[in-house]
């Protein structure tokens, strides 16, 4: 359920999205990948920008998703390109 092998995607091919209903503010994602997530005033997490994962952060985003106790992080593989 966590660290299954993934094919390496090219830059901008991954997008990350936080399920606001599920997020409870454990903040593991920010601890692992502060480039991709930020916390609001209540400590709940949000993706930075539109959630596009910059090149080089593919492994980190997978780790953040695997660390989330609430299973609130979805990684979407963009079509095309």
């Amino acid at each position, binding site marked *: 359920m966590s660290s299954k092998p993934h094919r390496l995607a090219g830059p901008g091919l991954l997008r990350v999205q936080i399920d606001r209903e599920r997020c409870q503010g*454990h903040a593991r994602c920010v601890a692992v990948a502060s480039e991709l997530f930020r916390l609001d005033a209540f400590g709940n997490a949000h993706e930075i920008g539109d959630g596009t994962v910059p090149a080089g952060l593919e492994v980190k985003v997978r780790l953040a998703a695997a660390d989330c106790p609430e299973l609130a992080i979805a990684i979407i593989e963009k079509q095309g390109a």
Partner: protein
Amino acid sequence: MPTRPPVTDWGSDFDHLDPAWTDNPYPIWDELQQKCPIAHTDRYMGVYFVSRYEDVRAVALDAEHFSSRAIAIREGRPPVVPAPPITSGPPAHSAQKKLLLPAFTPDAIRRYEPQTRAICRELLEPIAGRSSCDGAVDYAQEIPVRVIAAMLGVSPQSGDLFRRWVHEFLELGVTDRNAMERAVAEMRAFFAAEIAERRKTPREDLISFLAEARIDGRKLDDEHITGTLRLLLLAGVDTTWSMIGSCLWHLANHPDDRKRLVAEPALIPTAVEEFLRAYAPATVGREIVKETQINGRQLKEGEMVMLSFPAANRDPAAFPDASRVVIDRSPNRHAAFGLGIHRCLGSHLARMEITVALQEWLAKIPDFAMAPDAKVTWSAGQLRGPRILPLVLGGSMGQQS
């Protein structure tokens, strides 16, 4: 504590106050996970013990069938004393927790780090020169009470009083209703005086904040404020005290892990997550308010459920090599701080305190081990941590390292 009837079978007659459970619960939980993932006991007027990660998660996320109004397993089910937001459910819970969340974000907690570091250094000063100490009494138990006292704005000299309340409410109180009620009454009187003082002269602390706080434009009544303060005090003290003690206990027993953390202090935060997984201190109760099924077992309305986050964290279905402590484990989706809406409010405070406590200890006392023939005493009940932890320090450990 009076002698309790011995447990005949862990699956159908468990008792979380049994000395075997208190001494070393892990073999019991392993067996239950494999053979009886939802155990039951007629003791305490009926309690289920849920040990698998997926089942614990299912119960934690289901507020419809499982209520948080009672979270402690107690003999005879004394009337519940509300401690919002932990004893609240939807819809009231959300606003009550939202009120407190900004004070407990990682950024807000960072403000207390220098003070926590100073507390640790002050405690270590007299210990470091000695050949032995009690890691629980001399160090672990002193850190959380002083930090929470600073946050609440009450006297740091109140540590003994706070620990007595913790002991009476959470340990003695399981079987002794008078002890529990005495602690509640004393806490209520203590906080009533503090609140009255803040109303006259507000300060920069959590009591002042709560005294002025509003939900839907209305000030909180005193019962709500004292309930929340009782929660912050009880939950802020024994849990972190237990975790710091368990970390020291682990490192005293595993010299390779100890040496690695001394050599690689940057690994400490990752190791803390693994210690939280392996030695999660808190098992939380729920009251079954509507009959339902979990993992094929019918759960009866009116009985209690113990959500064992500590056992779930050792479920081999959720964690590879679950029974082994791997200090660089990653990923680590542990549930030490709970799952769902009741995620521990103080989780970032706890992480900071445990991390700072270990950083400072290892910098000052890199060499330590269990004292020969050490008798470690563990707390009994829903909170697990060492209360007596005899260690030998530095050069005195001889060939033990």
